[in-house]
């Protein structure tokens, strides 16, 4: 006798889409969330007159009405489009290395090529060659990976098989000479939390191609609007949800899930669980060691938890134009050596690469009239933050944030005169709110060995399914889609 057909642990992106998919299929589902609000990373908080976006910078995979991407198709499937409005962002990004480079790429292949050629006229053939390669690769990737061509071979799809696991840096080196050009083209590496030298080209190519073809988007009302809409649809479809209710244990008997115990000590019987708590937390915190096969414990032990971040939330009492902000997405780097920049994320020294996103550029209604908000993000590992005594945490946080602001002021000097609100989130903040080891924001590292090519994401325990960044890739599109896919697997097993 079970209380629910399925229990979902965590109302993050993956938990929400899993819940909605299950509830719509008539599966009696309970969702448990330890916080008071759905979304996980996909959330917002209000400070003064600003509602700050916490995590979403550029939503991938949307595409347009006439050329829908996979995420738009999924949201249509889930009948969510009527509840949401999306704002298309004009640019891929602006890449700035103060004093040395400043270039903006539109979300359009031909225009991006043109902008690069104008800045780097010596390298026109390399630029053409690189774009041709990215598009050829993605074309073959669709056949091999997405359509699962049963006759896929390295002869039929040479670009895919040759380049999928190459490191991104070596491909940039193959086509470009000027380090500034390599930096300008390769800058999306930070969205994957891995420097180009360790980022599989396959992952880089797909993200670059997908943002260009399906365009970057933002959500009206921020990512919380999406989380709230998904939860609302889930409740309407008959799903139950408890907030302020964490799970402390998954009960396993004879290699099968039989229920969960909540933080309050209530036992709920179920034969199926979708864990959006992350595979690390699920196996380390929720399931007793004796139930995990040695092979799975070794698999977990061999994996590397990915990076966290420091985010500065900035509310300003002027509109973007008045502050010299013309692009929504601005990558600011202090070096063309991405390995060096990445190394700074393991220290408390000024980070040498960061992202500045001003939401009001593409959506003037995002903040109150006459104001705008931005997020400054640098990737950061938790280790150095753990070495600070708690009594020095606040001063360290502000000193680190001041270093980031000093870099920002080199590009946007007027911002400093219009600050109305600032809040700072560190790896410890992410650890507090996400519960993930190291405050990881993208799950495990997006290196080749931690990618889905080598791990199938299935659980050794029957009835247990995983959704979210730790189950595959980080970011909004992958985590949203991971929930639906986990729910579908679960439904197939029920039948």
């Amino acid at each position, binding site marked *: 006798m079970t209380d629910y057909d399925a229990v979902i642990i965590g109302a993050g992106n993956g938990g929400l889409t899993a819940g909605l998919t299950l509830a719509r299929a008539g599966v009696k589902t309970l969702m448990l969330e330890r916080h008071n609000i759905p979304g996980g990373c996909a959330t917002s*908080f209000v400070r003064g007159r600003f509602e700050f976006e916490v995590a979403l910078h550029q939503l991938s995979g949307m595409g347009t009405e006439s050329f829908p991407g996979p995420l738009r198709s999924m949201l249509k499937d889930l009948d969510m489009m009527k509840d949401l409005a999306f704002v298309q962002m004009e640019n891929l990004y602006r890449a700035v290395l103060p004093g040395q480079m400043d270039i903006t790429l539109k979300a359009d292949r031909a225009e991006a090529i043109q902008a690069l050629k104008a800045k780097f006229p010596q390298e026109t053939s390399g630029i053409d060659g690189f774009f041709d390669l990215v598009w050829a690769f993605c074309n073959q990737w669709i056949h*091999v990976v997405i359509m699962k061509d049963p006759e896929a071979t390295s002869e039929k799809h040479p670009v895919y098989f040759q380049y999928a696991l*190459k490191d991104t840096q070596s491909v940039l080196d193959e086509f470009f000479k000027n380090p500034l050009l390599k930096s300008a083209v390769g800058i999306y590496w930070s969205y994957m939390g891995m420097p180009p030298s360790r980022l599989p080209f396959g992952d880089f190519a797909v993200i670059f191609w997908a943002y260009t073809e399906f365009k970057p988007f933002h959500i009206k009302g921020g990512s*919380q609007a999406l989380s709230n809409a998904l939860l609302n649809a889930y409740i309407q479809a008959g799903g139950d949800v408890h907030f302020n209710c964490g799970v402390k244990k998954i009960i396993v008997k004879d290699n099968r899930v039989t229920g969960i115990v909540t933080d309050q000590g209530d036992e709920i019987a179920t034969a199926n669980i979708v864990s959006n708590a992350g595979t690390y937390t699920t196996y380390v*915190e929720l399931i007793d060691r004796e139930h995990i096969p040695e092979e799975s414990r070794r698999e977990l*032990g061999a994996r590397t938890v990915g990076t966290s971040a420091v985010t500065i939330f900035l509310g300003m009492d002027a509109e973007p134009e008045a502050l010299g902000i013309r692009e929504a997405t601005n990558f600011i780097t202090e070096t063309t050596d991405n390995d060096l920049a990445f190394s700074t994320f393991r220290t408390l020294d000024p980070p040498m690469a960061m992202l500045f996103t001003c939401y009001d550029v593409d959506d003037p209604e995002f903040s109150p009239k006459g104001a705008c908000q931005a997020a400054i993000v640098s990737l950061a590992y938790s280790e150095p933050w753990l070495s600070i005594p708690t009594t020095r945490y606040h001063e360290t946080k502000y000193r680190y944030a001041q270093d980031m602001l000093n870099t920002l002021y080199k590009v946007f000097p007027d911002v400093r005169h219009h600050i109305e609100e600032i809040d700072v989130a560190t790896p410890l903040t992410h650890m507090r709110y996400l519960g993930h080891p190291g405050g990881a924001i993208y799950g495990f590292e997006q290196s080749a060995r931690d990618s889905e*090519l080598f791990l199938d994401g299935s659980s050794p325990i029957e009835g247990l399914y995983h959704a979210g960044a730790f189950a595959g890739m980080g970011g909004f599109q992958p985590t949203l889609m991971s929930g639906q896919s986990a729910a579908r697997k679960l439904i197939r097993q029920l039948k």
Partner: protein
Amino acid sequence: MKKKVKQQISGFSEIEQEIRILRKQAPDRSVEKGQVSRIIERLHPRKLNLAVSEIREETASAKTFRLVSGDHYLPPFLAGQYINLFLDVNGIRTSRPYSISSSPGQTAYYDITLRRVKNGFFSNYLMDEVKTGDGFQSTSPAGYFHHNPLFHGKDLVFLAGGSGITPFMSMIREVTDKGMDRRIHLIYGSQQEDDIIFSQELSERASRHVNLSVTHVITAPSSSYAGHTGFITGEVIRSALGNQGLTEKMFYLCGPEAMYGFVLSNLEKLGVPKRRIRIEIFGPPADITAHPGWPEQITKADRFQIRLKNGRVFEAAAGEPLMNSLERNNITLETSCRSGVCSLCRTKLLSGKVFHPAGAQIRKSDRKYGYIHPCMAYPLEDLELLI
């Protein structure tokens, strides 16, 4: 993708080899169980168990309670932050936030200082019933009314009224004790001269530290009083600070409800931009029906039915925050600020309508999907809640 397809990818077998070696040497992660929460507990424990170690009379109507840890240790805080105290008052489990008045330079104890108020259900209970040795729970320190070195600058003006001095006292003690490079001008409104909380300590600190000045404003002065009288007007501010650099300073406001509108309009007249003003959050207004936007036809005493998901029904008065009515019926929600801001009590309204006064900070999409903050929500109709 099938294994035999994957194996054709250049570099695949090398990475497989790398994984085999890593797995052979892999640590057993199960030993890390509990690590994340242990790290977070040091900075943000979910609940603190406190004990009163000392009670000090500050004025005839104000007392300081020194709170020490009952079990664990007290986490660090920023001067200006508050804790929310939980207490059973006449059989009702409820809570109120109080700013910490002691310096963050040490965390052996937190001081809170409060003042007797007319009909102050919780404060007066603390004043009259709580004794040395009593224990209770609180949240860990929270709140945003603190100096932010990223943009507040070094020239600070504290505008305090009555017991609104408490967060400023913490900031003043920190800056003067540590010799920090910040200039503070405190303009402090009190009813009468002998109502001034921390009067002696403030004048002592001001005489010893050139970076602290204090201006008192007395509403109902004795005949012999020679200082500023009345309220904290633009004139008082200008005479205390001079005309120079007013727009560069950071102004902080904390005091009784009535002080906010008055002082804010005066700051505006002095040309102080909104970005240079910090306002401490404050709890439910004394009379919500006087609040702009309150529907005329509904009176304080009107009562509505509150229905919970388990079928329970009880009544709540329109003139009282919903959270108080819930607590009276033994339903305790998570809460920290009780001012509509922290969002911990966020609750879904399934049907009915509530009034949120300005100051309750509700996310845009929360409004759309009917989420309310019961600590600052007043029932205007019968309600159905997802609790």
